[in-house]
């Protein structure tokens, strides 16, 4: 028996494990994946780009490691990206680090759509700051586009590409600022500073990029938390009192175990978490655990993310630096003069590697076969600039995660099926962003402009499928992550989000997780009341 059982060791699970460790409770985390070895990350070998389509593919279906589970995303306008292992998705992200804005928590009040969150930005502010210190954030204070924050390290250099973007945005009179990033620009808490390997997303061999396996977990383990890898949870079990009594999981050999616990905390992301709850059926919970509202799995938000790219005459930074360098909040807040509400963050990317450029350009007909191949290739490689449009995603119940009737993982556990369509408000937002990004690229002197309306297998933001709220009929968990139905069951990951915001979610996922852990600590004596 343990006091607290956490399922999932990624962004949220790691933060909660570390935060709760000070209680001296017996805490166990079960993780279906492995510890990662940075000396085997793609950037250590000559095949570093090719491995993005192999064992480091962002899609679990193509990556298909033993530690992955399949997801049927054939009925989704966006494909699912994730990573399974200690650190979860933080091993496999770009380290871009925006926070949700205060307005993101009040969308009903301010813009008349979706619902307000039961918590606000200011309740989270100290946890944002704590998390920035724990993850190690580089950035620059003074940005008029976002609330004040205090990154502990200076920002990533602008480089050639960032300078071009900055000059262009000033010419247009639009906001831009160096992005906050969890890439260390100085040696920081045992992490070596960035040396511009360039391929940050599939794991950082230098260890400069923060992932929870090298930030939260070493501290949590030292404080006494146990982390058990290759432990794939099949279901959460409840007792006659309607409380969670523990979980059933499979070890690496496929042996079934029951792990009893006083408290169960789920942190498996916006797809893994509803999958687990929907698989936890019993006579008391025939529609899945914590699902009296019927909302487990519904309101999935995936963040549509158009990309517009073009090619400038001068050679730029290409893939010789972290991919993302700047953001713009020019179009983030609602403007009544537009034909949509809410807004988006613009992200400015430096370029791509040689192989990626060749493959992506040939796939859209920009790089020919035959004798002209070499001349065109040299006009493209390290000449790309690219603007991403991180669109706010509003909840719709028809966008959902359900259990697949046939597909199962290697342990025979039913897989998740994703149904997702892009809403009309978001489509208008996407087109607005694409038009603005095109203006930016043209002003920068780019030619050969190409728009990708939805990225294949990206961005990997899975939100909203176990939303928080004060009304048990309209939400799955309360404002501090406790299930309305099962009083010792908590959900602390991005599935609790009420709305999606127009930005990368990891900073806010972790701030919310730390807030929930803090609430648990404050309420220990009355936790189940």
């Amino acid at each position, binding site marked *: 028996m343990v006091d607290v059982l956490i399922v999932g060791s990624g962004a949220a699970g790691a933060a909660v494990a570390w935060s709760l460790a000070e209680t001296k409770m017996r805490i166990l985390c079960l993780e279906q994946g492995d510890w990662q070895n940075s000396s085997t990350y793609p950037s250590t070998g000559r095949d570093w780009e*090719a491995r993005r389509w192999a064992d480091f593919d962002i899609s679990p279906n193509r990556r298909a490691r033993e530690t992955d589970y399949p997801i049927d995303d054939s009925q989704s306008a966006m494909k699912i990206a994730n990573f399974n292992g200690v650190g979860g998705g933080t091993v496999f992200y770009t380290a871009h680090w925006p926070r949700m804005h205060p307005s993101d928590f009040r969308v009903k009040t301010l813009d008349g759509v979706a619902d307000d969150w039961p918590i606000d930005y200011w309740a989270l502010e100290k946890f944002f700051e704590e998390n920035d210190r724990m993850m190690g954030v580089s950035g620059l204070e003074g940005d008029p586009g976002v609330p004040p924050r205090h990154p502990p390290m200076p920002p990533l250099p602008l480089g050639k590409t960032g300078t071009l973007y900055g000059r262009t945005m000033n010419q247009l009179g639009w906001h*831009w600022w*160096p992005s906050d990033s969890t890439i260390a620009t100085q040696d920081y808490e045992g992490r070596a500073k960035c040396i511009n390997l360039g391929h940050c997303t599939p794991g950082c*061999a230098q260890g400069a990029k923060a992932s929870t396996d090298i930030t939260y977990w070493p501290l949590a383990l030292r404080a006494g938390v146990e982390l058990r890898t290759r432990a794939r949870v099949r279901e959460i079990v409840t007792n006659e009192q309607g409380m969670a009594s523990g979980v059933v999981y499979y070890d690496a050999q496929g042996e079934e175990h029951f792990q009893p616990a006083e408290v169960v905390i789920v942190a498996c992301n916006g797809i893994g978490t509803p999958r687990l709850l929907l698989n936890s059926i019993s006579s008391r919970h025939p529609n899945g655990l914590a699902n009296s509202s019927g909302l487990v799995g519904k309101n999935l938000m995936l963040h549509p993310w158009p990309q517009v790219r073009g090619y400038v005459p001068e050679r730029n930074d290409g893939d010789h630096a972290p991919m993302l360098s700047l953001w713009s909040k020019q179009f983030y807040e609602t403007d009544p003069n537009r034909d949509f509400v809410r807004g988006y963050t613009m992200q400015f990317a430096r370029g791509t590697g040689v192989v990626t450029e060749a493959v992506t350009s040939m796939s859209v007909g920009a790089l020919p*076969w035959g004798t002209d191949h*070499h001349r065109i290739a040299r006009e493209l490689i390290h000449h790309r600039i690219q603007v991403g449009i991180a669109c706010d995603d509003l909840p719709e119940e028809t966008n959902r995660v359900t259990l697949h009737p046939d597909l199962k993982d290697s342990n025979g556990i039913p897989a998740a099926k994703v149904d997702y369509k892009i809403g009309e408000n978001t489509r208008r937002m996407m087109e607005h962003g694409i038009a603005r990004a095109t203006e930016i690229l043209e002003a920068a002197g780019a030619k050969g402009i190409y728009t990708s309306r939805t990225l294949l297998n990206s961005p990997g933001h899975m939100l909203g499928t176990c939303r928080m709220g004060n009304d048990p009929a309209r939400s799955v968990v309360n404002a501090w992550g406790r299930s309305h139905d099962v009083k010792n069951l908590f959900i602390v990951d991005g599935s609790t989000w009420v709305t999606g915001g127009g930005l990368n979610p990891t900073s806010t996922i972790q701030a919310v997780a730390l807030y929930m852990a803090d609430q648990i600590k404050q309420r220990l004596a009355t936790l189940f009341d």
Partner: protein
Amino acid sequence: MTATGLSPSENRDLRRVAGLMVPASTEYKVPGADDPKIVADIERSIGRDMGEIHNALAALAGIADLDDAAAMAKAEAFRSAGGPAVAAFERCVLQCYYRDDRVVISLGLEARPPFPKGHVLEQGDWSLLDPVRKRAKMWRDA
């Protein structure tokens, strides 16, 4: 069947099409993608794409025995048909071609992995931020 999973005829067809896709160039001093070393790398690296590569080579069967004009026409028909087999075939060729030392060096790059040497990134012009610093607060309080 060869040790890499392709039959001898598939190997010949793959090599022919790779050379049509990326021919050798004396101007840029690079081999074609039909260079034996590159083709060997392609065959070794097919991995997860083996099914689609078999599909692609089925569509291209016999191309190695055609004259240049007929081979190009067959390759063009294959490419214009599109689909996952074309995407996989192009990716398998390009991911190996563009990591060959001779090709990488011809592009003005170092033939090495990013780690451990990394790269140098210039700071850039931070004075460009001066007008942005003067802007009023843009975010909505709530």
